[in-house]
């Protein structure tokens, strides 16, 4: 696994000493964007490698997984985007008490604009009313930025780039669902998730990875489902029922035979990560966030000078 080596090597080049903290923050954020766009995290790479080995040799599924692996190597080597659709840019920032969010937000925007100029992000943000593309990736609601206060004195920045193909096959269900005979229980939840995967076929650039939220209102449910994509693929859910559901979904969906790109094959899903949120008695939403194989997620811990201290994935 050379990814971390590459990331660390570049991170070392950044010298915190003579730069003021704003400039240093921008450099660190651009580096985070570069690595996120061009290198899949270790946990994802391992899962893809295992899936590739599992396909029957000389099938179209095997062929697709081979090209996927080649693409991962080449994107890292050339430091160019894994996929031309560099997606919705979503930041999650964890900071100590007293941290100033507004100036940090401005630095994020600057970094996104610069990273777009450097070609780590495609000019990918379009005004939904006018169709105008400013070419900067900035605009109403974009990039998406979420702040959280935590106890640590350090600032952590996580980034997800979510492409359009997989976002388009993501789904939200309302239980009960008569057509699927899905009731308001875990079995009903299971049914709608499997249905979403069947509907997606190969269109989300599978094999995919899921984030799921059971419950919440429509907005929070979708938000928490997507936030599950921050979990490492090889972690284990501490909640017994959710852990069992996650395992069941992956095993069951991989029996469907949809396979990489929908060509038919053994791996339809790489992983499923689920959480839950309280609901009102009248509502029961299940939200499914589908991530393509080009799973772009990375994170950094910044030191007190805002240089990159540690990579999180």
């Amino acid at each position: 696994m050379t990814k971390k080596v590459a990331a660390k090597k570049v991170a070392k080049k950044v010298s915190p000493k003579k730069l003021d903290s704003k400039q240093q923050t921008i450099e660190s954020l651009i580096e985070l964007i570069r690595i996120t766009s061009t290198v899949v995290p270790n946990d994802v790479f391992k899962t893809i490698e295992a899936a590739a080995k599992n396909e029957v040799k000389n099938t179209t599924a095997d062929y697709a997984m081979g090209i996927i692996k080649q693409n991962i190597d080449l994107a890292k080597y050339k430091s160019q985007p894994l996929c031309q659709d560099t997606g919705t840019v979503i930041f999650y920032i964890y900071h100590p008490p007293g941290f100033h969010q507004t100036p940090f937000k401005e630095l994020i925007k600057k970094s996104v604009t610069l990273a777009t100029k450097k070609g780590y992000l495609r000019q990918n943000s379009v005004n939904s009313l006018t169709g105008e593309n400013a070419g900067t990736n900035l605009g109403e609601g974009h990039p998406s930025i979420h702040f959280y206060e935590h106890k640590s004195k350090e600032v952590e920045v996580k980034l997800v780039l979510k492409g359009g193909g997989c976002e388009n096959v993501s789904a939200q269900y309302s239980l009960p669902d008569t057509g699927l005979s899905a009731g308001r229980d875990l079995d009903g939840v299971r049914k709608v998730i499997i249905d979403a995967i069947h509907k997606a076929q190969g269109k989300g650039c599978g094999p995919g990875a899921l984030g799921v939220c059971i419950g919440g209102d429509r907005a929070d449910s979708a938000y928490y489902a997507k936030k599950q994509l921050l979990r490492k693929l090889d972690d284990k859910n501490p909640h017994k029922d959710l852990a069992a559901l996650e395992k069941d979904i992956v095993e069951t969906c991989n029996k469907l035979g949809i396979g990489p790109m929908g060509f038919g094959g053994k791996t339809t899903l790489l992983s499923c990560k689920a959480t839950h949120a309280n609901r009102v008695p009248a509502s029961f939403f299940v939200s499914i966030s589908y991530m393509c194989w080009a799973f772009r997620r990375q994170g950094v811990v910044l030191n007190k000078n805002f240089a990159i201290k540690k990579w999180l994935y």
Partner: protein
Amino acid sequence: MKKLNYPFSPEAVRELKVGDMVLITGKLFTGRDAVHKYIHDGNKPPVDLKNQIIYHCGPVTMKDKNGKWTVTAAGPTTSIREEPYQWEVIRDYGIVGVIGKGGMGQKTLDACKEHGCVYFHAIGGAAQVLAEKIKSVDGLYLEEFGLPEAIWELSVEEFPVVVTMDAHGNSLHKEVEASSKEILKTVM
């Protein structure tokens, strides 16, 4: 592994069948939403598409200081958006291949059978591997649609694709959808 070399023809693509892994060498023209809509609205395409292949792709392109274009990322985009238009382009302008991702519907499948055309599935997300196969940029048309939406004339070498809809009425997408639906019934 099969090979398809330029110049292309309906006879050559009729030899291909669903499941074939093919390396394409020769010329491709990109064309996505804006181009298909433009042709559908009655405008004549600015290039002769007879016996050519259309690639559903909005590439990332860079111009060097000498004005020369290179393609730095070029994966396929979702094809189903062109379903209302593709059959007409096949019928009226004689294209013999469509490259994209996710597959297309019955209208396109019928047009493929009638006129001799196949749908090639490129690997979604593999923007770097596919850009590497592009050896030169030979033309740029309808630039006014914006660079990702324009028609790019590209020379490719051993561009890797899988036939998922052939000229004999077969569709891998239909087959996988149906077989997975049968399994779905047993696991629900």
